[in-house]
């Protein structure tokens, strides 16, 4: 009886988890392909393939390669980045209810983007200032945390302070922005979305995403150790604080890069890591790629809904919110029914 019980609660075998991880990693590819023929101008798969092979008429070619493909790639990268950064932050903070915005990255990015719009510095300026603002906010929170003693809780507290402060500054800019042109722009940016994404915006995002993901994967086993209490990790010879800051820096880089292209998109960074963890387990070597694949697929799907469901685009953050809350509720109820804590 006891043996049977043990068999039932046995963690799924490593091979099965690795296979699931591989499946999640390739999951975005078919979704990405499908995204190319979905849209107001419906294309069939043959036309899409033709565009790639250079056999389609110029308008179709243009639509597929210059409009839909960069947007789909951007959606996939944003989803992957937010999910991976969320997973890394949840590990570092020993808290599955955390996401990478906890240190004020989004508030900083929002401030940067709003500033760029008020200064009329164009799309490139918005991307650069949003990216810089996000990094600056997280760096400020991290240094405040270090000044308070460097523990995890004071880091969270510093994040709350920075979030609040940057939101207030953002409010100030909105208050003084031109209400007919700039204010709507700022408001739409803060609701997230990927309309009119160009390759020159996607390229830097792809470079930062690739580097961040690769470095986090290299650190994945150490990241497992960071989920232990500080004293335990220290006793195992880990340079806890240095490593923690390194992982936070990489997660922040990914988040800032994503947000600087997409605007604010919530929930993905919180829920996708959960789902990925439920499927492949907590080992970050499998969890990070699984979260990346699942995050990319989810955001691709949501972006397809955002641009095709209605005559006008629905902002992404509204969609993730509408979907995220019930999903979160379902996950939470399932966890309560199982009688366990967050795993």
């Amino acid at each position, binding site marked *: 009886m006891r043996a049977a019980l*043990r068999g039932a*609660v*046995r*963690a799924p*075998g490593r091979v099965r988890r690795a296979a699931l991880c591989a499946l999640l990693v390739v999951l975005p590819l078919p979704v990405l392909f499908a995204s190319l023929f979905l849209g107001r101008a419906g294309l069939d798969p043959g036309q899409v393939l033709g565009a790639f092979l250079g056999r389609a008429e110029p308008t179709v070619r243009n639509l597929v390669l210059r409009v839909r493909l960069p947007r789909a790639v951007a959606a996939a990268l944003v989803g992957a980045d937010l999910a991976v950064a969320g997973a890394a932050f949840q*590990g570092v903070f*020993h*808290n*599955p209810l955390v996401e990478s915005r906890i240190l004020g990255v989004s508030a900083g990015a929002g401030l940067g983007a709003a500033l760029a719009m008020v200064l009329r510095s164009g799309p490139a300026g918005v991307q650069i200032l949003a990216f810089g603002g996000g990094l600056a906010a997280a760096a400020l929170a991290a240094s405040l945390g270090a000044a308070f003693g460097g523990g995890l809780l004071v880091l969270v507290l510093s994040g709350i302070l920075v979030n609040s402060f940057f939101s207030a500054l953002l409010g100030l800019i909105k208050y003084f922005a031109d209400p007919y042109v700039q204010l709507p722009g700022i408001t739409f940016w803060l609701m997230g979305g990927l309309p009119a994404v160009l390759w020159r915006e996607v390229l830097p995002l792809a470079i930062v995403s690739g580097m961040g993901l690769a470095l986090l994967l*290299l*650190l*994945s*086993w*150490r990241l*497992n*150790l960071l*989920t*232990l*209490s500080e*004293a*335990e990790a*220290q*006793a*195992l*010879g*880990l*340079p806890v604080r240095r490593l923690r800051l390194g992982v936070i820096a990489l997660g922040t880089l990914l988040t800032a890069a994503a947000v600087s292209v997409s605007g604010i998109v919530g929930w993905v960074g919180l829920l996708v890591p959960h789902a990925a*963890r439920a499927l492949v*387990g*907590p*080992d970050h*070597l499998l969890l990070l790629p699984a979260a990346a694949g699942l995050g990319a697929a989810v955001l691709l799907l949501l972006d397809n809904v955002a641009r095709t469901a209605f005559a006008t685009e629905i902002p992404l953050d509204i969609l993730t919110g509408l979907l995220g809350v019930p999903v979160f509720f379902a996950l939470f109820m399932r966890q309560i029914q199982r009688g*366990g*804590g*967050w*795993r």
Partner: protein
Amino acid sequence: MSLEARGLTYAYVPGKPVLQGVSLAVAPGDFVFLLGANGSGKTTLLECLGGLRLPQEGTVLLDGRPVAQLAPRERAKRIAYVPQFAEAVFAFTVEELVLFGRAPHLGPWGRPGPRDREKARQALALVGLEGLVERAVPTLSGGEKRLALIARALAQEAPYLLLDEPDAHLDPAHQHRVLAVVRALAREGLGVLATTHNPNAALVYGGRVVLLRAGRTLGAGAPAAVLRPELLEAAYGIPFRAVGDGPGPQALLPRLDEGLT
């Protein structure tokens, strides 16, 4: 060869030391129990010995060299520390948890390989958990969790083992299982220091006992010599009586007839 504390003084708040000039030594093969009332400085002493805290005065010497001068990884190869509570926020398997003990033996970018897996299996076999390799840590019982943490410390292959209340919150059978495993490890040559609130566990399993009161050493030596009713009363502030006949006490119990209610 020893892990030695010399005149340690540690204060969390300046002017209020929780350790005042404490000295003790653990040699390979020793099983030393550290006793004392709540707040007497046991855990702080353990953490100082493990190099996790730097004492304001005094030194911790590992085979004659100050622990504070060792790089964290080198220290972790020599001193293993088992906390009383381990956070298990995420459902790692028992094997994954034990493999964490290989961290000091792997480079900064390394991951455990087949050899480390083998060491983890051996460590699990030593504590008798070889059947639970694939189990998720949060599904383990309290005793199994404690044994898994000890296995992780064994996978570190450190000659010194520091245990914070290894017998706390365990039923008598699991207390025995954990302490018997630790005693066997000490007999194999490990130097072990464990805190406990149970003088009788120290009587049964311990080779030596150090009794703390308010950050100072009240007594040190063989269990039967230190764990006398007078000293225990001085340490805990309630009267004790020794039970049993023979050369020393078999058990020590609070004395209920002396106005204790």
